[in-house]
């Protein structure tokens, strides 16, 4: 058994811990040919450059705004879906709904975003529907006001089915006798949900929430990069997309490592806070 654990530990050592050495780059002026050991050490220069740069506050605020709004709307969505599915008695219908809601998850992000762009450009059917309902968009995807709603709604569409699986599993483990007892006590559907179902899955929900908090700074940056345009940078340019432009497109490895490290530190702090809060209120925590 320890042997099996060894394999996992080696995996983490090689793929998670060793690459951390690369973080040294954030404090250097990294040059490929000199490598990590030969590059010049510049201290906090890269960080200073980011903090003093014109895009620090904008990217930070955008990251938090998109993440929090996303959390607010797309986190509860699969829970609601799972509870609704749980109430369904017709197996066939239930399976069909499940399959349909899973499907977008298996589309590649690039394809999915391509569809979004098509549907929301000046002739996309979504734009036309919205406009016929009183909107006046030239092209929704390049509109500052429409970007975040599009981003979050499509996030929900993409992940709702897949994320509901874990809650469905949790729901199936809720003791059926509790429901019967509640019924005898005269609880309706709503009361049953509130007093039996919800407490039954609450620990799963909290763990998922804490895990989710850790990713808050990552947003869903592939999607941001695929969907944003210069006119929506104002609301859409997040730290990760900024890193992408600096590091991958510009080859400024040190700078993008520094910004990435900053991003992770904030993410880590958020996990700690979420963990602390949940420990205080519900006894459930990661550590």
């Amino acid at each position, binding site marked *: 058994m320890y042997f099996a654990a060894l394999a996992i530990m080696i995996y983490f050592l090689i793929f998670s811990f060793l690459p951390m050495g690369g973080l040294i780059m954030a404090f250097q002026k990294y*040059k*490929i*040919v*000199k*490598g990590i050991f030969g590059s010049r050490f510049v201290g906090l220069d890269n960080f200073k*450059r980011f903090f003093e*740069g*014109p*895009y620090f506050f904008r990217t930070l605020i955008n990251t938090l705004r998109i993440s929090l709004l996303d959390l607010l709307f797309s986190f509860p969505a699969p829970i609601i879906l799972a509870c609704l599915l749980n109430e369904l008695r017709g197996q066939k219908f239930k399976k069909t709904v499940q399959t349909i809601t899973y499907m977008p998850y298996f589309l590649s992000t690039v394809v999915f975003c391509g569809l979004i*762009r098509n549907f929301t*450009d*000046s*002739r996309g059917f979504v734009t036309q529907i919205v406009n016929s309902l009183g909107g006046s968009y*030239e*092209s929704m*995807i*390049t509109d*500052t006001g429409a970007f975040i709603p599009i981003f979050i709604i499509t996030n929900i569409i993409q992940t709702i089915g897949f994320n509901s699986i874990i809650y469905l599993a949790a729901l199936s483990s809720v003791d059926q006798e509790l429901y019967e007892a509640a019924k005898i006590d005269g609880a309706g559907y709503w009361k049953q949900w509130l007093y039996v179902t919800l407490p039954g899955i609450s620990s799963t929900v909290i763990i998922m929430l804490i895990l989710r908090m850790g990713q808050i700074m990552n947003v869903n940056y592939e999607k941001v990069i695929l969907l944003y*345009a*210069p*006119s929506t*940078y*104002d609301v859409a*340019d997040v730290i990760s997309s900024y890193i992408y*432009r*600096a590091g*991958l*497109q*510009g*080859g*400024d490895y040190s700078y993008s490592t520094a910004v990435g490290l900053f991003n992770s530190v904030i993410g880590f702090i958020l996990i700690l806070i979420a963990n602390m809060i949940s420990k205080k209120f519900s006894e459930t925590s990661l550590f």
Partner: protein
Amino acid sequence: MKRRVLSVLALALTAAFLVNGCGSTPQDGSTGEADTGTKTTDGGDSADADTGTDENADVQADAGIERISEEGITWNMFKGSHTCMGILIDDWNETLTAQQMEEKTGVHIDFTTPILGEENTQLNLLISSGSIPDFISGGVGGYEGGAVGLLNDGISVDIAEYLDLMPNFKKQLEASEFRQKEVYTDDGRITGLPIFFEDDEETEIFAGVLIRKDLLDDVGMDVPETYDEWHDVLTAFKEQCGITKGFVPGTTGMSQNNMWTIGYGFGYRDYWGSDFPFYQIDGKVLYAPVDATESFRAYLEMMEQWYKEGLIDPDFQSVTDINAQISTYSSADCGSCVTAYSMAGMLASIGSEFKEDFEYVVAPMPVLEKGTVTHEYYENGKIQLNAVIISADCEDLESALRYWDQYYTREASDLSCWGVEGTTYEVAEDGTKTWMDNITNNPNENFINMRYATVGTGYPGSFDVGSTMVDEFNIAADRLYREQGDNQWRISGNISLLEDELDVYNRYMPDINTYLDEMTVKYITGQESFDGFDNFIQTVKDMNVEECKSAFQSALDRYNAR
């Protein structure tokens, strides 16, 4: 500046891809040098170039290709891909040049060919993993400092030190002052082997403004010349033909060409979107938003007006990559674009599915008043640097230098430019060469693909400009722009920034570019009011644009002093 190299390179790649149908043959690979997306020439040097003519005559009388090794040598080479790769050939060794050179010199080259468009990343990976190929052709643009960076870091050899081993190259190099000025770096080094053009002739203009001929016929108007005429034509397109994408000012990559080319007529060189944003007048580096503020503003105001009137594609921000460009420019409701001429045929053949007579013609650069001289066009350079860079780790360096020197013999240059007489080209009685039908008139493949797949591409040497000018469309367009103006405002792509200059540029310019991309779009779409224009310009100044300019200024001064 390297931060934008990728996009610059993408631009260059696309340019090359469109023009030469080529992704990163060394010709464009030379782009890496000082990240010049565009091979630039300094028009003022044509006089120098002419002095070289006589000497060229005896260069041509050189000996043929020498055998380098009796028992055979094998080297490996990183060589950029091309659109013909994987379709017509699978390995550069299938081309005539590679085969004939191997036969004659006894040298075999193993090619490593990256995926088209991945050259920079692949080369960086090879370098950082320590397995540096003996010869590098393409992809250096992703390396910090480009070809000069490679030399500074001791990865490549300084060819200037070995000129004595390379008599043929030396002869070509010393044939004109212009060549020496372009090939030597500021401190007298040579980063790689260039491609010369005979007599330093001007090479082709490969791209320009295209407008839909069929629509012009439908509305009964002529090709527009001034902005007012453009406005009328686009309005007619919209009202009579229902065109919704009259003009498509792209915001990233190659499609930005639309945006800045159409601005030339206002008397400044547009800021080039996010790429190489400066231009020069009389040796002074300028940046449109701060140095030509009024013209820049006038242009944006016109664009806003056009946008309001529906003359501009409302989805113009989605035209980000080559696929989006092709599908936009070839759609029935697109009125105009700025792109390589070699695309025109392809666009028309896709477009003809929507509208039978779909056709693009070349329009002059739009200007404020008829007869205005413009100072910019899309020309390939008179010299393409760094066709081959030789690694410092190369075994038997002396033989390697001698091997590459062979390419500058007349025999080898003819081979790598034209191929084999009787197979790919014919020589007329007066000595002029012409391509044979199997290259120019292949029903399934365009000329560029056929040429590169059969003959090979990107080898150093001294080429014949006549080999590129085959298409009637190109020749006519070339004439049009040369009559309209010159190419004086371009900063030579062969300037090189020192490390601290590069640092300054990289530190400030990418953020400025982002800001400008963003604001330009906002002004065009009316999201931003022109009342705040002065603040916008002030912000650009506050973002240290002057420091970036002066980094370029010192590099340009050193270049001019060469």
